[in-house]
């Protein structure tokens, strides 16, 4: 996967936002195994086990925990807005994918609920185990070899010349 690639994902995905990352950073053991996992920066809107709206939340808030997350074996991080400050933590180990922000209704069609872990954290902050089917379009925004679309957009006005 290279920065700029367009991808779709099928399989298991775990939501994790502020509170789950705080637990993880405090060394708490999570009820799931993150080896090889996909995590999604998302606080979904779910009613009676049905995903109603589930777009990404801003990754910048939890970006500081990237090294810990990757250390637990996470291979793909899905979010929006990027984690450019922590891109080095991904090098050789994981990639960051951008799902279009605000597209909660679209994502809801591609995700279904398997299980809620840590229900005490509430709907938005809980750790949802979701099943993705043709989940996308996602852009590989930061790849494992240092490619970073956010950095390019900031430094060199590449938007116009990229294919």
């Amino acid at each position, binding site marked *: 996967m290279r920065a700029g690639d*367009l991808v779709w994902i099928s399989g298991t995905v775990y939501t994790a936002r502020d509170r789950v990352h705080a637990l993880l950073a405090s060394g708490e053991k999570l009820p799931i195994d993150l080896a090889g996992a996909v995590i999604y920066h998302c606080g979904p809107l779910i009613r009676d086990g049905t995903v*109603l709206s589930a*777009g990404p939340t801003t990754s910048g808030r939890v970006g500081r925990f990237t090294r810990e997350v990757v250390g637990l074996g996470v291979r793909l991080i899905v979010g929006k*807005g990027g984690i450019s400050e922590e891109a080095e933590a991904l090098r050789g180990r994981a990639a960051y994918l951008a799902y*279009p922000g*605000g597209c909660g209704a679209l994502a809801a069609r591609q995700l279904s609920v398997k299980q809620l872990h840590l229900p005490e954290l509430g709907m938005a902050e809980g750790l949802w185990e979701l099943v993705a089917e043709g989940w996308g379009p996602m852009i590989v925004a930061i790849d494992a070899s240092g490619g970073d679309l*956010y950095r390019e*957009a900031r430094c060199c006005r590449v938007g*116009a010349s*990229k294919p």
Partner: protein
Amino acid sequence: MAVLARAETVLPLWVEEAIREAAAKERSAIARSQLSAILENVEIAAAGGVPLCQDTGLPVFRLEIGRNLSIPPFLEDAVAEGVRRATEEVPLRPNAVDPLTRKNSGDNTGPGIPDLIVDLVPGEFLRITAFPKGAGSENGSFLAMLNPADDPIEFVAREVAKRAGRACAPVFVGVGIGGTFDLVPRLAKRALFRMPGTSELDRKLLTEINRIGTGPMGLGGDSTALGVRIETALCHTASLPVAVNLQCWANRSASATVRDDGWNID
């Protein structure tokens, strides 16, 4: 309740048109992929009556109250009751938490929330606009007390370009310039209510922001902002307050007018 439900599920037509126009002009393929996903999302939400975005926002309402109207008692309570019903029935994600304990109130209401912005206007009606505000764009908003020697337009363009990617660009940029420390963010909020701006300065700032190339979701491209509006007020000769209230592409709002003989959604 009805206006909030509509705002959450149906994007105003002019906003959808603005996104469509941006997509037609956009030169980056990656940026176009984001814009077409957004347009697909808008259709799915409206068709299914589900919230456009899982961040259904904090409830903010603008109340335009006719001067000749006797203001109904317990108006604030009625709006809060509407928010509680919408949270249950649409449904909305409970987003309102205590700022220190982070405990969720569970129904999107509580101290200070819903936020009501009241204007007295000529006439004998009450117009209520639901303007749910998501955190991604709210977190990218800012206020600065500049030096009168600074260029506020250049400052806003530079800051917005830096922040728009995390605020779900393409964004709407409500700008307040002048007034006092607490007036300037209200000018910025009012600028969002009156979007899009059409003055020469509004257009100049829009062009400036889009020239920098942040693009949709910060991934690069021509479409960083869809609309800019600047509202000004007089300020102290020694001051230059500037505030920007960012709004994501999902510039959600819906209004209803209440008269003696009933109400209807605008």
